[in-house]
């Protein structure tokens, strides 16, 4: 997993829960990197999983809720660093439709070792999109957050429902209906 996911995560934790919490979850997780993350590096996903679990225990907030909040936050990181890509899409639905076919393709070109989820996309109607999330990392809540923030960014409203097709969250069906 790319370093930026870790660095932004820890920055968010620091701003919401304080530097002590950061210190704590780092020392509690058994990290090969010893908590030293740079945005341009690459680290094992299991480290993220550990940090997340320990944070959840510490704050009594479920990992998925934490991830959703992180997702909402991470969208702004993407806008800051890759805003030009977003300008290529005129509507949020257009953007979401293109994630798998275009955006992730471009990401992989720049970062060949990026681990990204795979989306099966189906445009059911002009204002309805079905996206099936596939990933062994089961970070669908993170994806949910990103999706919601997308609509906010374009000043549009939508209803996003999801349904776990596999209990472990590795396959999730999202239904996005624009209002």
């Amino acid at each position: 997993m790319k370093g930026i996911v870790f660095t932004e995560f820890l920055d968010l934790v620091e701003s919401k829960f304080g530097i002590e919490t950061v210190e704590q979850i780092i020392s509690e997780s058994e990290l090969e990197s010893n908590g030293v993350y740079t945005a341009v590096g690459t680290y094992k996903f299991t480290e993220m999983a550990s940090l997340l679990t320990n944070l959840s225990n510490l704050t009594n907030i479920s990992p998925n809720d934490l991830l959703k909040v992180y997702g909402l936050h991470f969208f702004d990181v993407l806008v800051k660093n890759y805003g030009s890509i977003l300008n290529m899409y005129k509507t949020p639905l257009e953007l979401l439709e293109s994630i798998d076919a275009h955006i992730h393709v471009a990401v992989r070109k720049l970062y060949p070792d990026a681990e990204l989820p795979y989306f099966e996309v189906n445009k059911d109607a002009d204002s309805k999109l079905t996206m099936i999330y596939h990933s062994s990392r089961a970070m669908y809540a993170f994806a949910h957050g990103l999706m919601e923030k997308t609509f906010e960014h374009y000043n549009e409203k939508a209803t996003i429902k999801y349904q776990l097709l596999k209990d472990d969250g590795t396959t999730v069906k999202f239904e996005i209906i624009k209002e």
Partner: protein
Amino acid sequence: MSQQKIDILEKALKRERLARKAAEKILEEKSLELYQTNQNLSKVLSEKEIQLESLFKTIVDPYILMDLYGNVLKMNNASIDFFGYNIERDSFNVLSTLHKDDYEYAMESFKQLLKEGSFKNFKARVYNKKRELKWIEINSSIVYDDDDKPTFAQGIIRDISDDLKVQKEREELLKKLTISNKELKDFAHVVSHDLKSPLRSMNALVTWLQEDCEPFANEDIKQNFDYLFRKIDKMDHLISGILKYASVDRVEAKKQQTDLAIIVQEIIDTIHIPEHIKIEVSNDLPTIRGDKFRLHQLFQNLISNAVKYSKPENGFIQIDCEEKDEKWKFSIKDNGIGIEKKYHRKIFDIFQTLDDSQSSTGVGLSIVKKILAIYNGKIWLTSEFDKGTTFYFTLPK
């Protein structure tokens, strides 16, 4: 600030430092990678450029690369030589070289080129720098950019001015030959009729003389009248022979698949074959491409010769064929009186006949030779005096 907080901050600072160092290391690695990739690309690029240049130079035909408006961007040496323009010195647009009558065709073809991506066998007239007119043939194709949009057009040019000239000359020659052939035929026609007219008169007059002399004609007189009639007949046959010979066209007549077995059978059925002569045809007479009429003439002349000169009793003629060296070799064999070796060449000359009888015109074999010449065939013979003669000849498949 509490010591605990200080500790935490120190740890965080330490992590930041280490993270920075890690980032710097990654940066260095990436820079090195980039540099090496660059080097490789440069190497590959210059290799490709060398290959292209050498290909460019070795193409014998003129090659040009132009934009979609006809402005030439790249020329090889051959095209510089051909057009006389050099883009290193002055700009050059192919449209300016076109002959005005071919302009519309060129526009149409260019549209087609853009549509299909390639265009073959474009023929047009152009002027080079010296304002010399040349006929060219171009095979061209479009060069596309990464987005599949046409950006350039390229073409290989063949100067066909000479080819066309040669073709035209051939056509002229053929026309002249056809005319001269017709003139010869017409001439022969006229001559033969003009020559035959006095013969008719002579025949009538000699007949009347004979009738008038009857009361007192002795053997000598009767025989002289006989000779006279024979000679008149002979002259008639000779004239007919000339006409036939002249009408064997040197210009190619229509060629079709002709079954020689059928032709030979036709000949055997129609010419007069005395009872004591037997003709045997080998069944593998092939079908060849040729003019039915001429081939009929060819075989008829040879077969009737064989009949004429064969043994008076138990005459036997054999017609055979075999494949040899991509051609057909035919043979017509008789068991007749034979031909002395010293005459083997002469008999093919016109008017040469070894037979004094009035029906021999001496033209038959010369016609045979003329027809064979048209087909690039050969004819020769073997013969033994009083044993027989075999004529051999070849025809292409």
